[in-house]
Structure formats: C-alpha cells, structure tokens
C-alpha cells in the first residue's frame, strides 16, 4: 500500500515536471512567433521606403530575366526519364528517355571505379553527329567481362548510338538506342538515350550551343 503511494507520488511529480517543461517550451515558441520578422529584416525595413523597395524589386526581377537562356532549351528530368524540348517557355516536344542507372562498376583486380550517373547541371550542345560511331571506352569491355583491347579498331561500334548524337561534354551524348523497350527506365551508363522519332526532332531543332539542363 505504502509502495503504491510512493509510485503515485513519483508519477505525479514526473507529470508535473513534464507539464512545466512543456509550458516553458511553448511559451518560448509563442515569444519567437510574436517576433516573426527576423531582426535583420526589421532593420532593413526601417532603413528603406516603400517606393524605393518596389522600384528595386522590379529592377531585380528584370535582372534575373537577363540570366535566363533564350531560344531552344533541352531539359532532362533524370528521375522521370523525360526530356523536354522547349522554345523559351513554350513546350515543343516531350520525349521518354533513359538516363543513368546509378550502378557502380569496379575494375576486377584494378583501382578504377565508374559510377553510371547522368551528370546534373547546365550544359550546352558541343557537337552534332549524324550516324555516330561509338568508340567503346574501357568500362564497356570490363562490364562485359572482356579484356580491354589494345587495337583501336576493336573499340569501334557503329550500331549502338542510333542515327544522331548530340555531345554535351566529357563523353556524354544524347543519342539513339537499340533498347527502345527500356525507354523510361534508368539503365544507361550516363548518356541520355532517346527513341528515333524524338531524337530526330531534337537533332533538327537544337543547334551548337543550345543549353541543356539536367536535374
């Protein structure tokens, strides 16, 4: 009976402490919310007048627009495996593509390692190729479990890249594919594979220097 009373008192004590801590926490938050404007903003507001601010806002919005690329744009959504060909804000074409698999290849007994991601960021079309030839890099042989050839001609593959290719640097291309049924999935070694009809439309529209945004 006595033991029960001790437990009850301890429990009640803990509950009181907990409620006090909760109230203290909430009071601090309420105080913080009543001062919702950060100090630096409050100081900034005091220094400026409304008309100046509105004029500056127009100026800044205009300035941001000057950074935006004009003309044809290629946007690549690597998560959704979609390529958007745009002219300014106008959508010209949406294509189902294949982007990097995210897989890792390590050279057996060696030190080299490759991560097959499609690189993200801002790029530009650097080269436009018709009937492109793929010069297979070392990883293409290692992945197949083959020996890396010493003869350059053994690296030439004339079939894999389709009818057109647009290079955007570091050996990455937007190109055609033999594996059209895998379009829409992340299966490539970093390049962007596109179906034939979409690839031709992109190739016709994009020129050298066309901006590519990959995200």
């Amino acid at each position: 009976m006595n033991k029960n009373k001790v437990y009850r008192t301890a429990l009640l004590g803990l509950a009181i402490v907990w409620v006090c801590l909760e109230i203290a926490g909430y009071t601090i938050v309420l105080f913080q919310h009543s001062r919702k404007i950060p100090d630096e903003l409050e100081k900034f507001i005091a220094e400026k007048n409304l008309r100046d601010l509105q004029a500056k806002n127009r100026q800044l919005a205009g300035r941001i627009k000057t950074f935006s690329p004009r003309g044809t744009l290629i946007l690549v959504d690597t998560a959704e495996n979609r390529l958007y060909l745009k002219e300014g804000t106008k959508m010209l074409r949406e294509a189902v593509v294949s982007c990097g698999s995210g897989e890792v290849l390590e050279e057996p007994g060696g030190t080299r390692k490759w991560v097959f991601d499609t690189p993200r960021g801002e790029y530009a079309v650097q080269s436009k190729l018709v009937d492109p030839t793929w010069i297979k890099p070392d990883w293409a042989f290692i992945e197949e479990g083959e020996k890396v050839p010493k003869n350059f001609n053994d690296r030439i593959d004339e079939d894999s890249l389709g009818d057109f290719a647009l290079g955007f640097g570091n050996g990455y291309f937007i190109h055609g594919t033999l594996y059209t049924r895998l379009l829409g999935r992340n299966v490539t070694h970093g390049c962007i594979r596109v179906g034939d009809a979409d690839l031709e439309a992109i190739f016709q529209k994009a020129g050298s220097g066309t901006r590519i945004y990959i995200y």
Partner: protein
Amino acid sequence: MLKKASGALALFLWLLSIPAAADEKTKAAEMYQLLDAEAALAKAPSSYFIMDFNEKAVFLKARGIVLKKWELGKAKFWGKAVSIKAFKLMKKSTWFPPKRKNIVPGKDEQGNVDLGVLELKDMPAIYSLTFPDRIRVSVRPKSRKFFLFFRNVGTAFRRYTYLPLKTLWLSLKKKSFTEVELVMANERDSKALFWAFLEGQSCIIYQPRK
C-alpha cells in the same frame, strides 16, 4: 464644428492606413530579399531550390527558369523565422537510404526486366533536410489511411513533446532553431524531391509574414 469633425475623420483614416502601409512595406522588403538572393544564385550555372510557402510550392530553378515545380500539401513551422537568403543543403537524412548496386562484370543485364538499377521508386518518401543555422526540414507525403494512426502518434509525440523540450533546451543554451514540416501532395513527389535535391545545392526558404 464641421471642420473639426472632418479633420478628426482625416486623422482617423490616416491612422488606419499606417498598419496597411507597414504591411505593404514588409511584403516589399521580403520580396526584395527573395529577389536579391535569387539574383545571386541565377548568375551561376548551378540549379537551386526555392521553397515558396506563399505559393505553396517548391521550385527547382536554374538561371531564373523553373525546371520543376512540386505542389505542397501542407507546411508547419516551429521556432525562429527563417532569414530570406540562400542556404546550402548540408545533409539529407533518412532511415533507409537508397543503395547503389555493384555491377558483376560479364553478366549482361540489358535483357533483364528486373534490372535492379537505382530509380525514383527506390528513393525514400520520408526524410529530412538539414541546413545551416539549425534549420531542419522534415519531408513526408500525405499518409495512406492504414498508416494514418501511426503517423499521428509520431507527429503528436514530435509536436507536443520533442519540439517543446528541444526549444527549452536550446533556449537555455541561448541557441535558436527552425523546424519545418513539409507534407508533399503524394509519395511520388516526395521521392522526386529527394532525388532532385543534392547535398551542397542552394535553397531559399521563403516564408513571408501573413
């Protein structure tokens, strides 16, 4: 008498207009800070995020153009208001981080339907984003009914126990913090945001005064 009354009325109207003008000024100042921070980011080629709680959306942008937009379901704030400036994402945390698969040389997988590659479906839907100045953004999708009870228990514990105690603890240490709870419209959006947001990428959290 009439002059006095009209004078008093004019004074009354002028006094009424003061808070409205102050609000307008605050809005303009907040917009200025947003645009100023974005102008600095748009100058560079890297893409950046804007969590815009006015528009209830998260924007992925580059050079001022919108690359992708996610609608927000709900958002809740706790703690100090966030300054309108660019923050770099320090860390993405999740219970089950996606794992890359190692390729076994010699095993052709182009014909394999179950490729085991890293795709959007493999991304976590519940995670948190840590920024400098003790800013933490928890992201989750709207819950499916089955998980609603467990989620509510978790959210209640977090909101009514963990956060008040954390506030108290950090206040005693004279430190402030900000917690944002983002509820994405669906699981796919939540996963896509995880995919798109890279550590080191800049983000502006725009939470204008209501």
